[in-house]
């Protein structure tokens, strides 16, 4: 007979929360057995490809597809004229604007979709694209949002009223034809008064350049319309499959029950795969027209040039303080470049996302934020690249302003942070810009981080380096980058968070099988986050069945419960909560079954890891496995057969993960080459579900932060040509460029989340970008630098050094 296991051994056997469970997804990914959109091949499938505009702003004079249509194997060439009768030549954006599916008379950015070629294979489609003759009449190009607000050139005639009047947009009044919205939060007059009366005011323009999420797998879909049963199946790279189903139904008129959206394996999203793209609409139309499946998969250049970009925020800031360094106020005006269409992916009531988290980790009594959205001749987007809506922008802004204020006050930047942190006892904390921070212990995290890196020792070393540099003994400077960030993730409460009217709850549905294994389906979709691993761990702990016996399934709208998808670190805060709550429903029913089987009252049994035991008599128990079998196979009076549960979770609040990061960097003043000597990252994401997955997420987020801070950008020339459309110029770091990361943590659970978890996938990116940038800026502080813009690539660092007179 087997030895009776201890309580701890039984818990370990479940592989539940807190253990380093190996990723169940990796077996297929590491063996090349993943199933991505481009792996899907359906019988008779055709291939679509776009004719794209070489110009950033031009009128379409004519489109001649004769030669393309004459090519053997070309089935169709769709233009806006073909889509107009269906009302599909424009589509709604997630931001309440509309976007051309195919150029309707003009183009507004380089690479814009002009015509859609459908052919028998991918090669013929590409040949046919070359044969479509488009005549353009070039128009003046606007690439600078500040200039766009002064220009007579109207980019969006479709949004103009009669006699040159400017009708309101989706977010209120517009003050110029190229203006999209003004969004204001906080107290303008009070903030300006505080600024006027302050001992010290630091002012700076902080530009967060345009970049791109650049997932390894580009965007694509396979649309398949079955004309016999009227069902449309759409496989695609969708971070929000249910939302896509609803949007497709709304714009196509196909009833939602006749649409099945499937997100197969997704090779990274980072926000790039949240929205809807012309390729999806054209593929659906082409499949409806031809009656066979149509595949469209963009190439790397198309991905970088046309699908959703990130950032492009010009943030002018003022921060005021007493001469002792106590911050009294924060003022920010942001000019947001949204490109040719407003296709930002933000909750409807937040046209600049959660930019109003820009008071950061600090107790700032008075604040004001205004954001002006602007149209330019650039690609649309403005998605949250590995962050909750515009939170990277906010964190970068405040963490740069703190550094500038430290310079203004001639104070140590670590100490300035310390004296302004929100204190542990102030939580839940009401911020001046309207958020209720759920929990935090910033001082503990900060002290732990500074101690871990020997902060004082680093500063002493840096001071010596400056002396050595001045004495001509070295040409390398040393920068110490500090960041304490606070995120706002887990959107969100339906009362104030929706996208296109869809409330941002999420869901989980669990079926326990008779033999004690289970399947759980969620409204989210993993793109590499490891949901199949971690959600099974949550359930294992909640329902007492081994994680290895629980299948997690996502991404098929015919089977998964409705949810808003995966982005903004919302999976664990929202769907993870739904999973725990659904698990608790299972447990509640299991308790009744156990009580019946043990012949005691419901209240006389209690849950114990993997079983219910009779209170006070732990030798009398029924395991969850036994209970599952009984649930299906034993007639129990007053209890329905089966063991299933569903939970739709509307979170009461967002979660507020935070972290303390330190970067130590050496900079070659003569070449601008940077060398990251050390990177320490302390993350507090509340309850930790799988430490190994957290560590992987931190490594990934930091690497994308390094990319953005040190070189990754979507740059345009004056004509609106994209200068960084390939991976030769668009910086995607490899193992070679990445330093060794030291990870650490504190645990401050969320008080309102069922398991106290806050979300972690995006924290390292949000905190990492300002940390790398602060290190570069800090290296030159001793030579008079206040602020220099990212990306900090070699020549820009060299230029900074040059302007400071460091090249002799």
């Amino acid at each position, binding site marked *: 007979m087997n030895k009776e296991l201890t309580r701890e051994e039984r818990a370990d056997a479940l592989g539940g929360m807190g253990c380093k469970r190996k990723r169940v997804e990796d077996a297929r990914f590491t063996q090349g057995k993943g199933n991505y959109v481009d792996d899907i091949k359906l019988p008779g499938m055709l291939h679509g490809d776009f004719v794209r505009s070489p110009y950033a702003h031009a009128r379409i004079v004519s489109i001649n597809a004769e030669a393309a249509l004459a090519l053997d194997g070309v089935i169709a060439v769709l233009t806006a004229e073909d889509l107009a009768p269906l009302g599909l030549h424009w589509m709604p954006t997630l931001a309440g604007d509309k976007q051309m599916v195919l150029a309707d008379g003009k183009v507004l950015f380089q690479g814009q979709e002009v015509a859609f070629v459908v052919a028998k294979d991918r090669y013929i*489609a590409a040949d046919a694209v070359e044969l479509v003759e488009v005549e353009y009449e070039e128009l003046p190009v606007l690439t600078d949002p500040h200039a766009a607000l002064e220009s007579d050139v109207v980019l969006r005639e479709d949004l103009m009223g009669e006699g040159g009047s400017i009708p309101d947009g989706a977010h209120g009044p517009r003050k110029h034809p190229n203006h999209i919205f003004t969004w204001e939060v906080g107290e303008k007059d009070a903030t300006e008064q505080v600024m006027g009366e302050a001992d010290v005011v630091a002012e700076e323009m902080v530009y967060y350049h345009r970049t791109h999420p650049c997932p390894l797998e580009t965007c694509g879909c396979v649309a398949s319309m079955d004309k016999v049963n009227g069902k449309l199946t759409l496989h695609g790279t969708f971070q929000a499959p249910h939302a896509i189903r609803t949007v497709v139904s709304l714009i196509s008129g196909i009833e939602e029950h006749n649409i099945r959206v499937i997100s197969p394996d997704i090779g990274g999203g980072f926000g790039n795969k949240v929205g809807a793209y012309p390729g999806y609409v054209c593929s659906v139309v082409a499949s409806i027209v031809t009656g066979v499946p149509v595949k469209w998969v963009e190439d790397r250049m198309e991905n970088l040039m046309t699908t959703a970009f990130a950032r492009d925020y010009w943030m002018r800031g003022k921060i005021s303080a007493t001469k002792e360094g106590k911050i009294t106020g924060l003022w920010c005006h942001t000019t947001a470049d949204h490109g040719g269409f407003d296709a930002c992916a933000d909750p409807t009531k937040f046209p600049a996302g959660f930019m109003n988290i820009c008071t950061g980790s600090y107790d700032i009594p008075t604040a004001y934020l205004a954001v002006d959205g602007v149209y330019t001749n650039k690609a649309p987007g403005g998605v949250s690249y590995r962050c909750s809506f515009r939170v990277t922008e906010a964190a970068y802004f405040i963490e740069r302003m703190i550094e500038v204020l430290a310079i203004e006050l001639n104070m140590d930047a670590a100490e300035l942070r310390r004296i302004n942190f929100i204190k542990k006892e102030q939580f839940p904390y009401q911020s001046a810009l309207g958020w209720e921070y759920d929990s935090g212990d910033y001082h503990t995290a900060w002290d732990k981080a500074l101690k871990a890196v020997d902060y004082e020792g680093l500063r002493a070393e840096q001071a010596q380096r400056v002396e050595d540099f001045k004495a001509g003994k070295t040409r390398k400077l040393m920068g110490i980058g500090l960041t304490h960030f606070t995120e706002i993730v887990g959107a969100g409460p339906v009362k104030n968070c929706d996208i296109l009217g869809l409330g941002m709850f999420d869901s989980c549905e669990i079926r326990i099988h008779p033999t004690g294994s289970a399947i759980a389906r969620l409204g989210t979709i993993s793109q590499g986050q490891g949901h199949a691993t971690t959600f099974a761990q949550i359930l294992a702990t909640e329902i007492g069945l081994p994680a290895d016996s629980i299948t997690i399934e996502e991404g098929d709208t015919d089977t998964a419960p409705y949810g808003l998808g995966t982005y903004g670190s919302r999976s664990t805060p929202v769907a993870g909560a739904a999973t725990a709550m659904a698990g608790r429903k299972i447990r509640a029913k299991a308790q009744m079954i156990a009580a019946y089987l043990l012949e005691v009252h419901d209240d006389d049994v209690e849950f114990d890891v993997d079983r219910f035991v009779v209170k006070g008599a732990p030798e009398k128990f029924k395991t969850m496995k036994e209970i599952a079998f009984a649930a299906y196979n034993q007639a129990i009076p007053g209890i329905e057969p089966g063991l299933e549960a569903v939970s739709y979770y509307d979170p009461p609040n967002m979660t507020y993960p935070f972290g303390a990061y330190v970067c130590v960097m050496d900079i070659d003043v003569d070449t601008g080459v940077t060398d990251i000597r050390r990177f320490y990252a302390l993350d507090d994401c509340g309850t930790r579900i799988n430490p190994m997955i957290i560590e992987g997420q931190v490594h990934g987020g930091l690497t994308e932060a390094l990319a953005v801070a040190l070189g990754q950008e979507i740059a345009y020339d004056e004509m609106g040509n994209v200068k960084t459309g390939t991976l030769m*110029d668009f910086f995607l770091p490899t193992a070679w460029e990445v330093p060794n990361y030291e990870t650490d943590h504190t645990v401050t659970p969320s008080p309102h989340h069922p398991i106290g978890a806050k979300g972690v996938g995006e924290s390292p990116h949000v905190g990492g970008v300002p940390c790398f940038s602060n290190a570069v800026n800090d290296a030159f502080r001793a030579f008079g630098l206040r602020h220099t813009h990212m990306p900090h690539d070699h020549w820009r660092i060299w230029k900074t050094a040059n302007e400071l007179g460091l090249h002799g």
Partner: protein
Amino acid sequence: MIPAAFEYYRPKDLEGALSVLEEHGDDARVLAGGHSLIPMMKLRMAEVPHLIDLQDVDGLSGISIEGNTIRIGAMTTQHDIINDVQLASAAPIMREASLQIADPQVRYMGTVGGNVANGDPGNDMPGLMQCLDATFTLVGPEGEREVAARDFYEAAYMTDREDDEILTAVSFEAPSGGYAYEKQKRKIGDYATAAAAVLLTKEGGTCTAASIAMTNLSDTPVHSDAAGAALVGTSLDDAAVKAAVDAMLGDIDPTQDNRGPIEFKRHAAAVILRRAIENAWARA
């Protein structure tokens, strides 16, 4: 990123390859490692109706060292160069430079011949070959001829090679003295922001010979005779090094791109050359 249609040829011998070239003229191109040509075809910046893959052609690969003369077949990969112990000993600059080309995956495919024959100013081998004063062997319908690397490059992608010729080998005398290949690049896989190949000989504290070539700082590689001459006969004191750097700056003509403006590139070129000279001198 889908190339136009092309005919694919895979001849077994040089004659077979040459006959396709002869038949199709500039409609035909030979394919070595493919890391320049295939992306150009996929971007449809190069139309190649007739593509001749050289990988099955006999006798185009391999490194031979006879006496002081080193001959490297055109289809020899950078990976082969890095791992050839005898070459590393006879001409260590070849290994040092090859290790700075792209990444291991590219180096498994990338060849010496492709690198030098394509005429891409970003490639590292052309400057290196000029530094080594290498000779290129070209075979065409008229037979075999040899061209000095220093005379081969005319402009970006324009070389002395005729459309019906194939570059079959590079050869050079094993260098003596100190060497260095210094390269600044933004990331692994990138072309140089500035790169310098330097060979020096030292006798009794005096520089007796110097060869200096720069990469990606003009539309061709730049062998700066003046820069080398500025070092010869000196003890590489500050003034001599400065004179060499100034001479090099007189010979390069960089353009602005995403790596930075001209002013920065000239500064980087000076820094990289200075470091390469110091490094080579220390090894001489």
